[in-house]
């Protein structure tokens, strides 16, 4: 089997379908969680696997320990106040586990 996006993450905190909320925090430095999604609530769409932490890699560290990366699906209406279209319009982002809390 060739290397895959879906490397196992056996010790993960969340499973597909679970509701999560992105942490509200404004730490300095290189962060991969866009500001617009902080504090928003969504559902785990898939588990992407474990990856070296890009917030450490950015400064020349080795990115260990690896972090679990999830794709999280958010309703556009929950992200933008006054979003004027279908309730089934979504925005999906990749969020590292340390940025997520159970909703």
């Amino acid at each position: 089997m060739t290397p895959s996006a879906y490397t196992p993450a056996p010790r993960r905190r969340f499973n597909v379908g679970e509701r999560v909320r992105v942490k509200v925090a404004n730490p300095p430095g290189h962060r991969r969680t866009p500001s617009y999604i902080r504090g928003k609530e969504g559902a785990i769409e898939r588990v992407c696997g474990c990856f070296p932490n890009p917030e450490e890699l950015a400064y020349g560290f080795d990115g260990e320990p690896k972090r679990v990366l999830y794709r999280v699906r958010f309703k556009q209406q929950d992200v933008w106040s006054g979003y004027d279209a279908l309730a089934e319009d979504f925005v999906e982002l990749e969020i590292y586990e340390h940025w997520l809390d159970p909703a």
Partner: protein
Amino acid sequence: MSATHDHHPQEKDEGPPSEHEIMSRAMQELLEEKGLITSEQVRRRMELFEQEFPQRGSRVVAHAWADPAFRKRLLADGKAACAQWGLELEADRLIAVENTPQVHNVVVCTLCSCYPRALLGMPPTWYKSESYRRRVVREPRAVLKEFGTLIPGHVSIRVHDSNADMRYVVVPMRPSGTEGWTEEQLASILTRDTLVGVALPKV
């Protein structure tokens, strides 16, 4: 200035080099001096990005249109499906997302310009623009309309922000009138913009 000769300030090749161009050049010269890379290797990488990689996305999705089993594998695990088909995608983790009569997909990177380069080559200027990155996440229908792509009101839109380690390619719906086409013919209508999701393939 004629309509066919648009001015792209980011693509100018005249005038003094930017700070980043100078840094990049200096870095390359240092690496060459230390014998870690050669200018031939750099040239070859640029050639791959500009000539070979942009062809791959169309070929992969054309194959997915033609071969339902491959399509299924591609949607389940893009990188593994491509590898099995003989296409190694280097470091990219690929997620293929399919358009259906109910769902239209569009890709952006709001943080910078992450893009499936191994499948589509270098991102176009508009993809890197602050305007596209800022707006397509919050008003995708309006932005798609500006690209000439009208998504019916009953079709839901999924915006994929490739903000971390995954890369995305859209698998558009195969238009009617393409029955019996070869994969090469199919690839010809799978343009870059259809694979990013800002356009629909046209016969």
